């Protein structure tokens, strides 16, 4: 039951706190990475409000909302499997469902990119596109960069959860002793969710 305590820690609680703090600080650095993109978004909104609103109205906000719901639901499943892990129960099926929802998000995002590509509003190199103003081009550039960076993070999260699901299935993750591994992977997943919670209104709901 008791967690194995390593140097330099003297108590399981102290060790667990340090392991969580490391993750929180890493996630703070991720927050700062994305905050640079949010800063550009805020600047565009303040300086070119009509262009940003016009560009945002072209976005497929229903797809964005569906993707938000997928991520929120996946976060619930991750939270439930983490809670189970802390009580010593392995729930690989719940974790696998969360992974499927994450993959569903990426699939829907790909469909959306394809639609935007066909509409000529996705600023990919070599894509046929026409923007009425430089600010609208800048907004779509920012959208593409921010959502792609988010998708990269989500893919890493899927990899993390998949690794844990396999370990749970094989029984190579002793629970609840090593539930901190589940907790920290969950923290990462939830932060990627939080970043999308802000990306969605900033890009899809500016009116």
């Amino acid at each position, binding site marked *: 039951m008791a967690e194995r305590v390593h140097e330099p820690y003297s108590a399981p609680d102290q060790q667990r*706190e340090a392991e*969580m*703090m490391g993750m*929180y*600080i890493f*996630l*703070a*650095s991720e*927050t*700062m990475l994305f*905050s*640079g993109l*949010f*800063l550009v978004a*805020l*600047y565009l*909104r*303040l*300086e070119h*409000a009509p262009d940003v*609103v016009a560009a945002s109205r072209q976005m497929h*906000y229903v797809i964005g*909302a569906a993707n*938000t*719901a997928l991520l*929120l*639901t996946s*976060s*619930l499943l*991750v*939270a*439930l499997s983490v*809670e*189970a892990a802390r*009580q010593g129960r392995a729930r690989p099926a719940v974790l696998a469902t969360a992974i499927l929802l994450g993959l569903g998000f990426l699939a829907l995002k790909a469909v959306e990119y394809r639609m935007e590509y066909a509409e000529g509003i996705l600023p990919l190199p070599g894509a046929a596109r026409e923007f009425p103003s430089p600010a609208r081009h800048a907004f779509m550039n920012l959208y593409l960069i921010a959502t792609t960076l988010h998708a990269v993070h989500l893919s890493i999260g899927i990899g993390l959860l998949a690794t844990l699901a396999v370990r749970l299935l094989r029984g190579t993750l002793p629970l609840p002793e090593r539930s901190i591994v589940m*907790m920290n992977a*969950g*923290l990462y997943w*939830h*932060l990627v*969710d*939080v970043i999308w*919670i*802000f990306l*969605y*209104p*900033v890009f899809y*709901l*500016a*009116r």
Partner: protein
Amino acid sequence: MRTASPVVVWIMLLILLALSVAASFVFSGMIGLTVALTVASVKSALVFWRYMHLREVSGLLRIAALGALFWVFVLLAFVTADYLTRGLA
């Protein structure tokens, strides 16, 4: 019973999502932006508090988890200070 609470948080998150989509059709301009960011902040607070364990960890860990928020605020506020105060001149 122990697993009820994450489900309640999830329902609240979905309601807030519907609210932010609906609000975007009612409010526009700076008011719309403020409403959208406020709803997003409430959603994030729920995720941080319940799913990211902030309700059960020590004050030190809460500072570690939320410290970045302060720096983001400094970044956004200082860079946009000029644009946000132009009407006051």
